């Protein structure tokens, strides 16, 4: 029997005074655990108690009367994990009580057992303590506890803090001795671990555990032989985090805000455009003397709809009865072998699908044996099986290959004729790589080869950044104190790390990379686009391209230097081309024109985050870099002053504020100071003051807030 997927967990947190310096760490660990349960295992139940609280609140105390199970307080009864659990953990704080560790243990076990009853849950108790609490127990009681743990197949983990050997108190020594005795008795179901290590494990990115179910059970047919097999999906794309649409306006409503997912209704209308030549309309048209050609939308009911499929230019309607004729499904599910081919005949890149693992029916020893023998034979013969596969009745058949692996055959789809494009390739490029170039490339490959030991970037170690980042943001917003935390946190290093080239590896390989670069000279991209691709879309794309390709402040060495005007389409490129032009001095012209481009962009920008805003800021940065580089600060500084006077007090003041934030955030739009170029007359203090004068929040913010409120009011009226 497979392990139940649901888990009932009871956490006991030691809050007695000696835990003072460890409680936050302990709470964080529990918080992480609860968070993972909310995200991945909503079915799990969690209960939380604190030991060493000043009050006593637990069922065992009520049953056994005062004097028993004192100063143990349940702060969250066993219940499916929810946000309440999170709050309960948050509210835990240090107290000065003194409770018995064994009492706590019994309480937790009791709570779990009572909660689970006969239901299918795996059971776990987690105790986080510094073991400074007494553990009052005799041998018989200990046996009893051990037996109960074993009988209920409960896992008991103690996460110890502050248990560094040389500084242990006698109390700790004693408690630890008791726990060790227990561990001996219980065996695998008991674990003693340091909290730091547990936190590390918890902090690792997590995924939802899925109990695999077979994709196919049947027989691998080899001629007349039937080899019973099971097949599991090995790789299955995890879906993105599902979010519900919530109406912003509806959240004002108290009733609706309780169930935000119910605030949006989706209405789908199916209609055709029909000529409005019903009687009435036609008569009107006659009167007016104009033939009515106006089209009206006529709703089509579901029963009046019919499916159609495209055949070239034609659209062929197909009735639901005929629809069956279009299908091509197998009568019975099947996996039939066509034959074997050499492994080299099935190149890796033709794999069409995520693989399934095919094994002999584990319930039939003969089948497992036969499959293993077949795998061994295929390995030895360097062959793969080709089979016809339809996992369900009525499914269309597909050709698959069965590739031998150690424990199973990998079943992977092969392309059909239509899916494989035979392309007429142009003849090969004429200059083939020279021996020197090949040599440099070989050295590069060797230098950048990742180590085999402790192999990095194994797919099973790399988590999906989108999913993990979404979890991170959800958690951040959920745990942030209400009102705050609206800005999303920066991506956690754990998420982003695998996607950044290892600086050490690339640093070491720098000589080889350079050598390769010198052997195979690659010029900068030549913009050979012929079409303007106007409109917003084109613009946005160009913008993206620029952002991706142009390192800030890196003067571009464009080949053509015939540019004599800053082009609003590609301002950054053309700006640098003009600056770098050695045949004529275009610096002043370039700066002036770039300023114009920025002015125009800002005029069109609605916010700092839209394409015009972003582009304008990017251009401004480039202009600044260029101005510093060519020691022409006046124009830039003048532009900033001009923008300030124009935007600071205007309706588009948010643009100015965004710019200001950029400066504070270190992206640097500030005035060019004397430190940067001697040409400038602006001192560092002046530059600071330039922003400081208006950035006094006491003056600006209320005004702005009012403005916004007014706007919202107007908006409200409109609605």
């Amino acid at each position, binding site marked *: 029997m497979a392990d139940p997927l649901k888990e009932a967990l009871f956490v006991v947190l030691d809050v007695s005074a000696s835990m003072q310096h460890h409680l936050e760490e302990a709470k964080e660990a529990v918080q992480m655990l609860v968070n993972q349960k909310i995200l991945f295992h909503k079915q799990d139940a969690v209960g939380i108690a604190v030991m060493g609280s000043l009050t006593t609140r637990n069922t065992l105390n009520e049953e056994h009367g005062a004097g028993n199970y004192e100063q143990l307080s349940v702060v969250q009864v066993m219940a499916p994990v929810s946000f309440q659990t999170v709050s309960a953990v948050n509210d835990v704080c240090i107290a000065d009580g003194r409770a018995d560790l064994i009492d706590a243990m019994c309480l937790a076990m009791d709570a779990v057992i009572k909660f689970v009853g006969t239901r299918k849950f795996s059971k776990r108790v987690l105790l986080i303590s510094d073991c400074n609490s007494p553990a009052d127990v005799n041998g018989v009681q200990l046996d009893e506890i051990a037996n109960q743990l074993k009988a209920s197949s409960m896992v008991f983990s103690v996460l110890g803090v502050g248990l560094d050997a040389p500084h242990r108190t006698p109390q700790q020594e004693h408690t630890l001795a008791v726990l060790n005795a227990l561990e001996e008795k219980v065996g695998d179901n008991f674990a003693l671990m340091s909290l730091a290590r547990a936190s590390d494990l918890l902090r690792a990115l997590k995924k939802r555990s899925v109990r695999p179910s077979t994709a196919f059970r049947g027989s691998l047919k080899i001629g*007349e032989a039937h080899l019973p097999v099971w097949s599991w999906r090995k790789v299955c794309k995890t879906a993105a985090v599902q979010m519900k649409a919530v109406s912003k306006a509806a959240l004002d409503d108290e009733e609706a805000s309780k169930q935000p997912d119910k605030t949006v209704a989706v209405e789908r209308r199916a*209609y055709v455009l029909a000529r409005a030549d019903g009687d009435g309309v036609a008569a009107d048209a006659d009167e007016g003397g104009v033939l009515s050609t106006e089209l009206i939308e006529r709703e089509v009911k579901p029963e009046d709809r019919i499916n159609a499929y495209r*055949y070239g230019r034609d659209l062929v309607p197909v009735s639901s009865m005929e629809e069956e004729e279009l299908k091509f499904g197998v009568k019975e599910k099947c996996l039939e072998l066509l034959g074997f081919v050499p492994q080299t005949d099935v190149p890796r890149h033709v794999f069409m699908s995520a693989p399934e693992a095919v094994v002999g029916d584990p319930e039939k020893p003969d089948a497992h044996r036969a499959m293993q023998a077949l795998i061994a*034979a295929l390995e030895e013969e360097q062959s793969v099986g080709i089979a016809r596969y339809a996992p369900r009745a009525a499914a269309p058949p597909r050709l698959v290959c069965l590739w031998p692996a150690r424990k199973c055959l990998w079943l992977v789809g092969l392309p*059909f004729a239509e899916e494989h494009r035979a392309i007429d390739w142009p003849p090969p490029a004429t200059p083939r790589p020279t021996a020197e170039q090949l040599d440099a490339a070989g050295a590069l490959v060797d230098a950048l080869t990742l180590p085999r030991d402790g192999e990095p970037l194994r797919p099973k170690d790399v988590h999906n950044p989108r999913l993990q*980042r979404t979890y991170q943001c959800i958690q951040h917003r959920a745990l942030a104190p209400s009102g705050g935390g609206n800005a999303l946190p920066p*991506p956690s290093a754990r998420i982003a790390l695998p996607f950044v080239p290892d600086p050490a590896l690339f640093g070491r390989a720098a000589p080889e990379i350079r050598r390769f670069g010198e052997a195979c000279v690659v010029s900068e991209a030549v913009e050979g686009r012929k079409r303007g691709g106007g409109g917003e879309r*084109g613009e946005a794309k160009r913008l993206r391209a620029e952002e991706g390709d142009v390192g800030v402040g890196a003067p571009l060495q464009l080949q053509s230097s015939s540019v004599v005007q800053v082009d609003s389409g590609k301002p950054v490129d053309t700006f640098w081309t003009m600056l770098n032009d050695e045949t004529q001095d275009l610096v002043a012209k370039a700066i002036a024109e770039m300023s114009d481009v920025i002015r125009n962009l800002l005029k069109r920008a609605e916010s700092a985050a839209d394409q015009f805003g972003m582009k304008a800021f990017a251009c401004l940065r480039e202009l600044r870099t260029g101005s510093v580089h060519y020691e022409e600060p006046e124009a830039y500084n003048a532009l900033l002053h001009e923008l300030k006077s124009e935007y600071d007090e205007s309706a588009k003041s948010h643009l100015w504020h965004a710019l200001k934030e950029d400066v504070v955030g270190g992206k640097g739009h500030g005035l060019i100071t004397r430190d940067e170029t001697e040409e400038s007359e602006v001192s560092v203090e002046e530059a600071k003051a330039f922003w400081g004068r208006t950035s006094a929040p006491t003056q600006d913010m209320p005004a702005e807030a009012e403005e916004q409120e007014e706007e919202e009011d107007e908006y409200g009226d409109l609605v």
Partner: protein
Amino acid sequence: MDLLLDDAENEYAELGAESDKEIPQKDCVLFIIDAHERMTRRSHGEPSPFMQALRGVINTMQDRILTGDNDMFGVLLYGTKKAQVPNDHQGFPHIFLLQELDLPSAESISKLNRLLESKEDPAFGHLEAHSSETCDFSNVLWVTSMIFNTSKQAKQTRRRAYIITDNDSPTGSSSSPRQQAITRACSFWREIMSKVRTNYKGTADAQELELLNPENLSDSWVHSAVCFSEDELASRLKRRSQRKRILGRLKLKINEDTEFSGCMVSMIRSYAKPPAIKLDAATNEEIKTHTMRICNVHGTSLQPVDLWRGYCYGGKWILFEPWELKALGREDSEQGLVLLGFKPRDRLKLYHNMKPAGFWQPLETRAGSTVAVEALVESLHKKERFAVCTYRRSTSEVRLVALLPQPLQLDPNTNSVVMPCGLYVIQLPFAEDIRELKLLPSMTESEFTPTELEAAHELVRSLKLAQAPVGTVPNPLMHKHYAYLRAVATHESDTKPTVDGTLPDAIFLEERRGPIRRFMEAFNLPSEAPTSSASSSKKPKAEKIGPPQSTADWKELWQTQGLTSQTMTTLKSFLKELGLPVSGKKADLIARIQEHLLAEATDADTLLLGNHSLIATELAS
């Protein structure tokens, strides 16, 4: 400079502006078929070259419908007796536009098919070789360019003309050099049948090109004047008219200073049955749909900006702006392929696969990329390594990919490119996508008996296929789908049965019965599919047959111990029918029914049922 390279660059240049999603890149194909009488002569019982050409055209069109490409096709004949030219232009004798440029349709294919099958001479007639009239080939080219330039359909497409002729020099030996130049400049692609010819490549003469395409050079004509012999014109045409679909430009970055330009080419893609389009049954008009989101509280229609995206976090609703979510997980990540390192080939496990691989090819946007990448690919191939990269296109999320080297591969006979130099881009699964499977441990060779091992080896050796069916077998589902649609569209009643190429070859297997038998016996395998074992661990699903109708049904149920699986409602209604009381628990109802059936049963039944009841009671006790 070779014209082919020009063409390739044009293709990329066109694409440069849009690099994001798969752009519908339409082709506009005009088949120019030589219809001189010479072409209609049969030889050795084979269909005439003209007929073969037509069949090739039909196959190509059907193939394109099947692969769902919105390409346009036209058929132009020359050397006909009659003339038919668009807009009824005069002065172009012996040129006949059989089919105007358009998307292929069932009707147009049927028309060609009829032409193919008819025994009579077609209405347009074939011009005899010794006839005094001749067809001026430059006129053909004029008409061709006219068709391309006047057709609205041909706008924004890539134009290609295929000239199918058995004449070595369609311009005629007596033509002026100028005409020959035009022919070359036009740089069409010729298929010459039955004879091996030398390569026919001309240099582009700008002046002549201008004459043909006064406006724009980039209205590129297809030009690979390759001549070869080939029996199967149809398959040749089909292959030839495939061209590469570029998914978008993508750079390959090694570090800040070393970057190569390239593009992703679609070579293998999974292709499913296209979705149905909904029509209004009354008018056969396409139904439009409109989706509106409405606020349940205020009843207003909601725009995307009026919405949060919400996630229920343990009962607390976490809200996001839609735009916040878009950027999640790809902050700071770079577009394109960014190298993370190389790994030995065996570290790419077989299960590290999500979907069909893409193919990345260097482009000369950054001059020198091709040579550099070629050097890199060669070394990767030699050292048996692959590259691990991050991969992001502007709209998609960041993924890890493996780049497998594909060195340049040439056909040893023709020296043409089989596969160009590039890198296969294989998407790797993430930790979340990989499932841990608990599989039984593998067995070592020593655990088997020699007979068992020999049986397995013999099986593998004897069942060797001559050729791996990779990309060669057509999908029977698609063929059935389109064959049926065509039959409906053209009101043809007889459709050919679909050939299922995925079926095992029965004769092949029958011939190898011995090894299969021995394998079967060595491992004690059944010769019939085990029946119910397939769902042994799952609960058998309730069968979806309706409630029993007749008394016979009920008897059968009784015999098969199926009474208990009936619902109370069914049992009660049956009892009601019989006029028996319907009160009591389920067991009571069943007992009552059994009693009744027993009373009614014939002797033979009684015997049978009696036995069963006996067994049932035994089991119960």
